[in-house]
């Protein structure tokens, strides 16, 4: 039983890590129907920005909570700026092209960003400071859940709630939904569609950057290639949950994380990915739109 609980928490940690990245994926997809393959790079850029900013701040001797907040802000703003620029340069000019064109552009952007950071920074693995302190009250449970695990769980829950509410209840959220439903119609009723799409990218990238910060401090290292595998897994989770659906991304992430943890725990970690992707195939056979996705009829 104890082992089961330990694995459960491993799965939840993994799931919430995937969720942090999957949320941005699914949001962008939900609004403009583009699979943003450069999203994993935003996560990597967030981690790098956090590394640089926190190193500089700790030289000035700021207290840890202040460093954490300022670093998170800086990473979110910086990655948001990247998201904005990437959308302007790589996706907006292709807005009315066939669907495959922006997809290729996204892959190109991903490769470009990886290599750009590699050249501008380093190809080496970098140690990442423990920005989240060890909490004394967690010490008795340290074997099950750590401070970063808890922080990641809480942050991804908060982000999910904020996004759901924001999209449901605010004016901008309403404009986002309108853009998602019918871009031309949204334009006709006076919504600045370009601005809404830019905003979607900025928010998605900022989320990925926060994810980058938390996950890098969870595993204690970062590298220019971390975005790739994390991006693939988060994308899988988003598809599993129903791409475009925000609660779906979180659900899909947890299902994926728990499957991997239990597969590792009770079978073998050799087959971790086999289980994860078999599950994806099974779910897509029975629910082609994903767990919480709505089956949409393609407008012709």
């Amino acid at each position, binding site marked *: 039983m104890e*082992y089961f609980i330990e*694995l459960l928490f491993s799965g939840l940690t993994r799931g919430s890590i995937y969720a942090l990245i999957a949320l941005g994926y699914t949001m962008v997809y939900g609004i403009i129907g583009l699979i943003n393959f450069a999203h994993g790079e935003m996560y990597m850029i967030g981690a790098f920005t956090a590394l640089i900013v926190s190193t500089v701040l700790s030289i000035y001797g700021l207290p840890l909570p202040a460093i954490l907040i300022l670093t998170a802000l800086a990473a979110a703003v910086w990655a948001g700026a990247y998201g904005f620029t990437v959308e302007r340069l790589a996706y907006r000019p292709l807005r009315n092209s066939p669907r495959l064109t922006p997809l290729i552009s996204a892959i190109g952007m991903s490769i470009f960003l990886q290599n750009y950071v590699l050249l501008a920074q380093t190809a080496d693995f970098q140690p990442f400071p423990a920005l989240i302190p060890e909490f004394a009250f967690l010490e008795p449970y340290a074997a099950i859940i750590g401070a970063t695990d808890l922080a990641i769980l809480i942050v991804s829950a908060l982000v999910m709630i904020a996004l759901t509410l924001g999209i449901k209840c605010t004016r901008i959220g309403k404009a986002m939904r309108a853009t998602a439903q019918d871009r031309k119609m949204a334009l006709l009723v006076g919504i600045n569609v370009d601005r809404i799409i830019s905003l979607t990218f900025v928010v998605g990238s900022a989320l990925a950057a926060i994810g980058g910060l938390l996950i890098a401090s969870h595993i204690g290292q970062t590298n220019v290639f971390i975005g790739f595998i994390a991006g693939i897994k988060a994308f899988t989770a988003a598809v599993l949950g129903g791409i475009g659906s925000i609660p779906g991304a979180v659900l899909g992430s947890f299902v994926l994380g728990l499957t991997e943890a239990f597969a*590792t725990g009770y079978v073998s970690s050799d087959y971790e990915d086999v289980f994860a992707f078999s599950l994806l195939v099974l779910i897509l056979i029975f629910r082609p739109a994903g767990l919480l996705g709505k089956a949409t009829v393609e407008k012709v």
Partner: protein
Amino acid sequence: MRATKFFHILTALALVMGWVGTAVGAATIKIGVAGAHSGDLASYGLPTLKAAQLVVKDVNAKGGVNGTPLELLVEDDVCKPEIATNTATKLVSAGVKAVIGHICSGATKAALPIYRDAKVLVISPSATTPSLTQSGDYPNFYRTIAADNTQARTLVDFAVGTLKVQKIAVLHDKGDYGKGLAEYAKTFIEQSGQAEVVLFEGITPGAVDYSAVVQKIKRSGAEAVLFGGYHPEASKIVGQMRQKRLTTLFVSDDGVKDDTFIKVAGKDAEGVYATGPADVSANPITKAYRERYKKAEGTDPGAFFDNAVAATLALTNAMVKAGSAEPEAVAQALRGNEVATPFGNIKFDAKGEPVGIGFTIYQVRNGQFVQVH
């Protein structure tokens, strides 16, 4: 076109004259040097050629073997098995008594039966495939480099013999290097009879979290984790083990014996054991040969240079000790006598593996790898 043809004729002529030369000058002991001297892998083979030339020059200056000078016959196999068989046939028919080479394991394996049938001793500075010696098929084969599974052997001997752990979790990163090492380690642990493998798992490199595997290690009750793979995964696993307050020992390979590991894993790296080749740069023999190479070539010696010096020294020393170049006498001398080489004193075991060339154990202490074994 015409120019190339002309060159071909010249080369052919030179070759013929070369053969005639060797046929006439019978009063030498012939040693073959075979390996890649051109093509993609020439950088693996050329340092060996230079090393053999340097050592043989010294031996001849001291009067050779019983007054007979040594002569090197050089053949290029470009590291290709199909060419290596030709190379071997050529050397055998030229009457070599021993061969330094070949360089690549594949080429060596292809050539060995030919040498075995002709009773020619072969000593390779670089062929690491374990079966070359350990299968027992080639009693004429020796090497002056640690076999691929030596590292696993060193790790297991250390864990079982020195650390005295009885339950070992063997993990690997599913890659050629890591998985190969882990499989050898598993076999050796089982053969030792003093410890058991309580867990054997491949992890996914690049994953964002290894806590499930860490929980599994905890549940297995392992006293030590033996990891085959590279430092990025090692530092993540060690980090997460310590996060989960698991104090299990961590033993790994030379993919982890890298300063980046210490930099990234930080305080979690403390106490981790890793294998690595012993540092030989302070050995006077190593220094002397490296300097002579540098003087002659203007660059630092490349791959396997020290191993090739060791191979040639071992061979010529055995010939001098035996007082002849007859393979049986030389083989006995190779096994029975220690010889001073760039790696210190070495000799060969019954299978032809070098005793004295291999890996040592390092431990991270105060942010540095310190040799402990």
